[in-house]
């Protein structure tokens, strides 16, 4: 690299910027040895009891910098393995193949792929390799971001907040013993019934780049951002939480067109927005949903799919039915989501 980037040039806790991902994964594994294992060679995380014989295995992966996604969701009732790439960079097929082989319990493996060009291509190459080795892989694409319009003229909708919900619900489906096509169908149902919209109040600084991806003056907001620190679709004056909630919920609902009335409301922090504000935003979202005739019978509030230390939030609405609701409630035991265990 041409420029010298070091820990001291950013407000970050790190050693060498090149080692951030590996060192963080080592910490995650040290803290959660009961739940998951880190294979530093293959650069993958697997649940401690993998492979679980006869169970459909779920793996996901993507660039790092979105923690707890995906590593924090490895464990009983959710992912069997995660493949973390460099910050904001899709992992490579070797990782995905190693993960696929490590967790295959004979009932097939599902690749949960967020719809980004890099992720899609790398997972595609990995799936081809896995097929060569006789492992049945089924890919499920997540593309819930309604901020991406005219998807004919783009790489298509991005996979954002729905990823978390899908990994939890499909994980529960696999855990209760559903077969490959059932788990895949449930995962796809979650994706079809979920929509998201995100906003940024600040940029973020990838460690290797050493400076913010974009400049955003105080008092302005990027609307329709993804999770890679990329600018949004447009920029506007920063309104109140009430106004921002409307700017997020409206496109979500008008695209989702929920048929039923029960929903899961997910208010997600981008990494640098504290809980105080997330719950304040949840309050606004909850009111808007009820005003639209929807009842948020389940919710999730917190920073679960992030862009490093970016300030901002996203809203995901998932239309529920009895089965999705009970799969959401099923026990889960991962570093970042845990209940019933």
């Amino acid at each position: 690299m041409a420029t010298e980037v070091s820990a001291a040039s950013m407000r970050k806790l790190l050693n060498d910027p090149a080692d951030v991902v590996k060192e963080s994964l080592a910490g995650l594994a040290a803290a959660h040895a009961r739940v998951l294992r880190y294979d530093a060679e293959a650069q993958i995380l697997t649940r401690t009891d993998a492979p679980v014989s006869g169970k459909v295995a779920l793996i996901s992966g993507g660039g790092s910098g979105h923690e707890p996604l995906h590593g924090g969701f490895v464990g009983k009732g959710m992912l069997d393995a995660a493949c973390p790439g460099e910050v904001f960079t899709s992992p490579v097929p070797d990782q995905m193949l190693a993960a696929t082989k490590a967790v295959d319990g004979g009932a097939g493996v599902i690749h949960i792929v967020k719809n980004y060009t890099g992720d899609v291509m790398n997972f595609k190459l990995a799936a081809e390799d896995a097929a060569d080795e006789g492992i049945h892989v089924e890919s499920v694409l997540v593309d819930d971001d309604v901020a991406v319009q005219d998807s004919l003229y783009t790489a298509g909708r991005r996979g954002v907040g729905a990823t978390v919900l899908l990994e939890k619900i499909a994980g529960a489906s696999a855990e209760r013993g559903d077969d490959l096509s059932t788990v895949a169908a449930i995962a796809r149902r979650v994706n079809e019934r979920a929509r998201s919209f995100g906003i940024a109040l600040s940029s973020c600084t990838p460690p290797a780049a050493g400076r913010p991806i974009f400049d955003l003056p105080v008092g302005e907001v990027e609307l329709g951002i993804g999770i890679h620190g990329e600018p949004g679709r447009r920029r506007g004056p920063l309104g109140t939480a009430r106004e921002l909630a409307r700017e997020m919920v409206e496109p979500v609902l008008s695209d989702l067109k929920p048929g039923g009335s029960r929903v899961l409301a997910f208010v997600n922090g981008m990494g640098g927005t504290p809980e105080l504000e997330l719950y304040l935003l949840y309050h606004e979202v909850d009111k808007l949903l009820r005003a639209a005739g929807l009842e948020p019978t389940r919710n999730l509030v917190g920073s679960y799919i992030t862009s490093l230390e970016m300030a901002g939030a996203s809203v995901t609405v998932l239309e529920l039915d009895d089965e999705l609701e009970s799969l959401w409630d099923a026990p889960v035991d991962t570093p970042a989501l845990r209940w019933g265990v």
Partner: protein
Amino acid sequence: MGSISVIAWMDEVSAVIAAEADHLTQLDAAIGDGDHGVNLTRGFLAVREAVASSGDLPPGRQLILAGKTLVSTVGGASGPLWGTALRRAGRALGDAPELDGARLADALDAALAGVVELGAAESGDKTMVDALRPAVAALRAAVERGASLAEALEAAGNAAAEGAQATVPMQARKGRASYLGERSIGHEDPGAASTALIVAALGRALSA
């Protein structure tokens, strides 16, 4: 007539990409996620080492090794794309002992086809294809009109650079930049910029 040394090419690419990494990353920060320079630097460093220590392989095998190494180390969009490109180029060469002008034109044709097959980008979508396609065409034309390899490579390099420059006014329709819609206009595509560097490096990998 001269031919290309794959080892020298990868050496040159590795050096120029590392030198321009910050610039590429800044281009990517403007319309993407700010990792393109870092991604390719990591990848071509690994390629350089792999190719240099691979012993006495024919150029086609060296390119396949380079492509596999890129796929295994880069990630992102550029890893599979350039990885596939080099693998396809290598396969097109087969066990040919030398990478001369005609073979290079065939190899780059195959590379472009691989990129298009995987990424489905068309010309004008503001991607590396907008630099690679004119480069391949210029090389083919120069070789066919009997130009020297050096001249052909210069023509290819110029075409790639112009192609990259031409992405500035385009609106992205593929990759991460496409999410920005009209806001992607006015910026050079990072993948096209790096492609121009990679093609230009061929000229410095020419042995008599």
